[in-house]
């Protein structure tokens, strides 16, 4: 095997040797550290990748029209989501 250097001390041979010594990986999902894997079709994926169509919107489907509050900022400081269950993570705690 050719041992000309890739960088100082590093050669393709050394990389191949290192790779060959690793446990065989069947799929890219089995990464160097076992990572949690999620089937994401419910939230992302093929069916959710953008709905371009040529349909108009009926009156009963324009649910997004919330009234604009006079004091827009008020509710931002009172999140109603998982944020309520987060401890720390505020600027004051930093």
């Amino acid at each position: 095997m050719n041992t000309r250097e890739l960088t100082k001390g590093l050669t393709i041979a050394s990389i191949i040797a290192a790779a060959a010594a690793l446990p065989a990986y069947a799929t890219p999902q089995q990464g160097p550290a076992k990572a949690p894997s999620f089937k994401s079709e419910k939230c992302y994926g093929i069916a959710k990748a953008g709905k371009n169509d040529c349909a108009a919107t009926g009156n009963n489907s324009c649910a997004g029209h919330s009234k604009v509050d006079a004091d827009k900022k008020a509710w931002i400081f009172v999140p109603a989501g998982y944020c309520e269950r987060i401890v720390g993570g505020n600027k004051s705690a930093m």
Partner: protein
Amino acid sequence: MRLAEVQDALREIVTADPARPIVSLRGATALAGQLVGGVRPSVRLAVHRRHYRASLLEALRTKFPATAWLVGEPTLVAMAEEFVQQHPPRRPCIAEYGDSFPQHLAARLGETLPYVPDFALVEWQLGQVSVAVDAPPLTLDTLSALAGDDEVLARCRVTVQHGWRVLPVRWPVERLFERFFTGDDTTPTEMAPASGHLLLRGARGEVTLERVAPDRARLLGALLEGLTLAEALASVPDETRASLLLAELIAGGAITALDARRPAQDLPSC
């Protein structure tokens, strides 16, 4: 009225703040007497206004369901309404609309909910990689065959799987995503700043996301940016560690091709 003027007026009406009645808009004044249909045709343009706004809001809600879970639907919708008003789409492909929504969230929520921008940015990328397709990876055999051309190989760039991303984060948002995906939203999570990098890998509807060591992130990031193998490896000071990291990437199926682009003028391409 010239066609361009008609379209100026209609564009103004369609994109105007929904709080403003059509009849109060410049565009409606410009079109006075030009429209026909029913008793007050300009008011019928509400159908177009409504579709424009509702469809874009829906697009953002669909793209950021985890962020909606995190901050609550009302906040997400209000942020989306602002975003649609301030950053309307510029291309006829709604699937691509919203890539700068995380920046808008950073500007509006970053002070009080500092982990939200990272979270939304990761969510956008999760959406992207979940529709990627992976390609057969470069094998050790292929690499072995090139073992005699270290000098050429050093100057090669590589193609990384299209569904892989390395993202810098300042907060451990991967813990929040785990809660989101497992549906465990009752237990509290402690969030403290934790700078680092997340590796996202996705293909055909499946995604993984994990925190990776800085040197692994740097190496992969360099390859994703199109640096040569030598340049990328140089980012890892310890040579043994560098070869191990690259070996792990190869064994993990990260690399699908050695790039055919000419690496330098006087050397043959890879």
